[in-house]
């Protein structure tokens, strides 16, 4: 079994009309055994910026602590919050620092930039950014998620419709993946 599939995870983010939504599953497992059904995978960096970390739970926790540290320093120095694009570059740089001994995580970043323009991106475990205009996925259920999102996505959805679409895409995908599931957390901004 791959190290990325050790804990099991599913993450997806979608863009709507001046809003975004990011969702994750809630299972924390150790290979075949489920440890908890209330595990938090999405973290708030600031009011308009969320990061979800799929993959190995320990690296997700360590990486989150490092990112919060860097963002707090940024806030102290610049006296403002980081833009999502800047934050994505920061995450990419931190991941590439460990190029030959990486964090086994795939982040999904979702935020609102200037003029409430939604921004989403994902990257692989060594920081290769992948920007998208519609949706991004990560985790053990990513293949199912690609299919479900492609089928259900419409551009310029309002917040409520976006929430419904994202939830249904997430739940139907994790139902086909034994390593993720047990409900979902959805954040709509």
């Amino acid at each position, binding site marked *: 079994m791959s190290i990325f599939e050790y*804990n099991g995870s599913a993450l997806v983010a979608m863009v709507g009309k001046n809003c975004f939504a990011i969702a994750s599953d809630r299972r*924390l497992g*150790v290979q075949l*055994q489920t*440890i*908890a059904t209330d*595990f938090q995978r999405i973290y708030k960096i600031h009011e308009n910026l969320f990061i979800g970390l799929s993959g*190995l*739970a*320990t690296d997700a*926790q*360590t990486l989150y602590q490092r990112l919060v540290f860097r963002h707090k320093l940024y806030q102290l120095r610049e006296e403002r919050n980081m833009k999502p694009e800047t934050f994505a570059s920061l995450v990419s740089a931190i991941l590439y620092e460990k190029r030959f*001994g990486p964090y086994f995580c795939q982040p999904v970043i979702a935020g609102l930039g200037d003029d409430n323009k939604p921004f989403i991106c994902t990257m692989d475990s060594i920081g290769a950014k992948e920007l998208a205009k519609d949706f991004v996925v990560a985790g053990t259920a990513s293949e199912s998620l690609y299919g479900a999102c492609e089928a259900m996505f419409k551009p310029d959805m309002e917040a409520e419709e976006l929430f419904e679409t994202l939830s249904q895409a997430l739940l139907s995908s994790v139902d086909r993946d034994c390593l993720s599931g047990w409900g979902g957390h959805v954040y709509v901004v």
Partner: protein
Amino acid sequence: MECVFGLVGKGFALVVADASAVHSILLHKSNEDKIMILDSHKLMGASGEAGDRAQFTEYIQKNVALYQFRNGIPLTTAAAANFTRGELATALRKSPYFVNIILAGYDKETGPSLYYIDYIASMHKVDKAAFGYGSYFSLAMMDRHYHSNMTLEEAIDLVDKCIIEIRSRLVVAPPNFIIKIVDQDGAREYGWRKSINDDHISAA
């Protein structure tokens, strides 16, 4: 294989561990205490490689005490858990500790809490947790019978059910178990469940 499990009840938390010290097919002793009392209101049950277990839990215990000496107040359970996770995470990519930890504590403000910390430093706050082959039986038993705010009698009854399940269904079932409790009165040994009594042989 080593069995450690724990659960949270009303105003207390229990940690149960087997008491066997094993090297390959040989059982050296069956009254080994694997649940370290970190300070007055914290317990750390550990399973994994024997040397790492003893060394790491003692290291955490001494650092928890150091914090109290330096700062005059004890660490909260959450802080101790995060410190433990930090130590495991730092060592992970250098020379990892192969120790799985169940950390139970009682704080005046927040009551009892239980933390599951993997040997690769994945941490999660839980109501019930278990490690080892015994976890397949004890987690299933707890999933069935556990509910929040259990009384001590109910919790001990559940612990006994888990132990019976482990003894009857695990092929290499450990003979003896130790139970420790932490509540507002502190962390202490609650009792043993023995099927082999070797107390007359001097304990290490």
